[in-house]
């Protein structure tokens, strides 16, 4: 079959070594291309493995000294060489959860609007603009956080929450003075703005894949537009939406600059959201270049390893959920 291909002048510079030689060279070329691209692809594998390896090896001192206790210890005392990850894990999780509490309702309802209600052209242009929001660098969010959100929380939002929700029995603990403007809540708000575009864009795509007949069946049975959306379409896409939430969560967990500029940098575990806190990414950014002593540095790298694992698991789950929805469609 390939021998007949020699009649086409694909390689004018080839000396006429006969049909077989040409075919051999053809195959050879393919193999080279295969090899080259394979090498580069494997390079990614190598790079990522090296990253995990470096994290593991360089955190050795800290892992050996503290073991599993590292996750529960609340002190972070460079002077006495006592390090614990608890305040940072707490801060990372709390700020991310706060951001999701704000971003998920906001993002999901915007996605519903874009997927179900808006005419296609408006939906596309608004989507486009929201994608642009996702491209804004995080240091700029931090800049705006310092000069807009912090004063806002200090003068308006904080006192409002203290005076209203602060008196409600159970959740009142979340809104206690003192209120500095910097803290978990502020970081959560800034993070919410950063992750809402991800929730919107993925949820919108997933909602668009829900088959038409599902909606129409609901409407035919007399449901209002909202009921059809909320009780039929959204549940159908629910695994994909969960995936988008996990994606957003993973993004929020690893965010460094915007958080460190507004969280107050205080490694404490406090119930009040208005109190200053610390996250894993923020403490690494602040203390890495000056960690005097190998144990200190090793503890910081162990924190980096913990963060890596958290985002690894979440991203994995997110991918599985999103792919599952796009392939099979979520069945309620």
């Amino acid at each position, binding site marked *: 079959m390939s021998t007949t291909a020699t009649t086409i002048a694909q390689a004018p510079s080839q000396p006429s070594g006969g049909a077989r030689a040409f075919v051999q060279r053809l195959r050879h070329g393919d193999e080279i291309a295969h090899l080259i691209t394979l090498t580069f692809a494997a390079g990614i594998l190598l790079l990522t493995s090296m990253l995990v390896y470096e994290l593991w090896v360089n955190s050795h001192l800290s892992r050996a000294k503290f073991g599993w206790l590292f996750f529960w210890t609340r002190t972070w005392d*460079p*002077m006495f060489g006592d390090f614990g990850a608890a305040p940072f894990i707490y801060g990372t999780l709390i700020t991310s959860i706060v951001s999701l509490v704000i971003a998920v309702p906001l993002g999901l309802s915007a996605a519903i609007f874009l997927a179900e209600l808006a005419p296609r052209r408006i939906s596309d242009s608004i989507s486009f603009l929201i994608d642009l929001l996702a491209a804004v660098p995080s240091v700029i969010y931090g800049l705006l956080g310092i000069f807009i959100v912090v*004063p806002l929380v200090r003068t308006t939002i904080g006192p409002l929450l203290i005076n209203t929700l602060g008196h409600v029995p159970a959740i009142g603990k979340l809104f206690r003075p003192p209120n*500095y*403007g*910097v803290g978990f809540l502020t970081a959560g708000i800034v993070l919410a703005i950063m992750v809402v575009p991800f929730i919107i864009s993925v949820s919108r795509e997933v909602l668009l894949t829900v088959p038409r007949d599902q909606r129409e069946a609901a409407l035919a049975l007399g449901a209002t537009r909202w009921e059809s959306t909320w009780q039929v379409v959204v549940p159908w896409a629910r695994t994909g939406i969960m995936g988008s939430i996990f994606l957003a969560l993973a993004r929020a967990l690893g965010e460094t600059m915007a958080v460190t500029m507004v969280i107050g940098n205080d490694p404490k575990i406090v119930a009040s959201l208005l109190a200053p806190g*610390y996250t894993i990414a923020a403490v690494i950014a602040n203390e890495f*270049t*000056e960690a005097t002593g190998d144990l200190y540095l090793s503890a910081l790298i162990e924190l980096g390893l913990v963060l890596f694992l958290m985002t690894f698991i979440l991203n994995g789950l997110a991918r599985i959920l999103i792919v599952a929805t796009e392939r099979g469609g979520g069945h309620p």
Partner: protein
Amino acid sequence: MRKTLLVVSLVLGLAVAPSAQSDATVLLNAAGATFPYPIYSKWFDVYHQQHGNIQINYQSIGSGGGIRQLQAGTVDFGASDRPMSDEQLGQAKFKILHFPTVLGAVIPTYNIAGVTGELNFTQKALAGIYLGQITKWNDPEIANANKGVNLPSADIVVVHRSDGSGTSYIWTDFLAKASSDWKSKVGADTSVNWPVGLGGKGNEGVSGLIKQTPNSIGYIELIYALQNNIPYGKVQNAAGKFVKADLAGVTAAAEKASKEIPDDFRVSITNAPGPASYPISSFTWLLIPAQISDGAKREAIKGFLKWMLNDGQGYNEALSYAKLPKPIVTKELKAISQIQ
């Protein structure tokens, strides 16, 4: 395609161009204390203008960072307001020399609505505030020292450093001398387990936080308060007097040390005796490796040190740092020869 090539070559050209200007450029990288950052950045700028081929890139990442990066060898020299401990010196794989550069003061600054003047702080007050035991501005310990000032009953927002800081060391060193409670519970170091407060990065970050946060108190180097118009208070010294930080007070604090400074120049002058001494004063040091193999770098550093000890000192007072006492300058000039 052509346009891309043009842009790429333009950028590459720009990248290479500055180095093409001076054939014998000596590039020194340094990092460390934020305490003397204003005077250092002035010095390095002036020095570069006088010696166009010497570029000293100083990054203020905190004294802890300066010590660490010097130990790791990623900078040519470091800077710290905390003299390296014997343990830290032992961790470095090479000998490190300390050279005092200026004398400065760490001051308590605050942002209280309606209070624009100087508050008096007793030693107990400062220790109590930072221990979290004194929580309101109108606490008797503060109010009694400031009769006539209308202090609000607002909560005190404590600000400290979030990074490893020599300024923190000076502050906590003073608090440890002022309060045995502080000494046993927290101690004195560049990074401590702060009982309360928000963390700011660098003197710059703390100043920024104070400016933006009402009812806050923090500790920063004198020049940062002056350059940003933040009010600061007087501190009670060992002799019981309330002294405001200024050149005279800092120089008085260094008087004893200037006669008795050890050969390696490591000394603490907080809570110094004498009625005129400002109690939270300190030297700050450049940390220089004793062995520098690169000849050009070595000569550049030695040249800078000589300049710093003579002409450089002339820039101190304009930025509110005190000059080094003459006996110390003489001793240092001799010590430069130890750099080989």
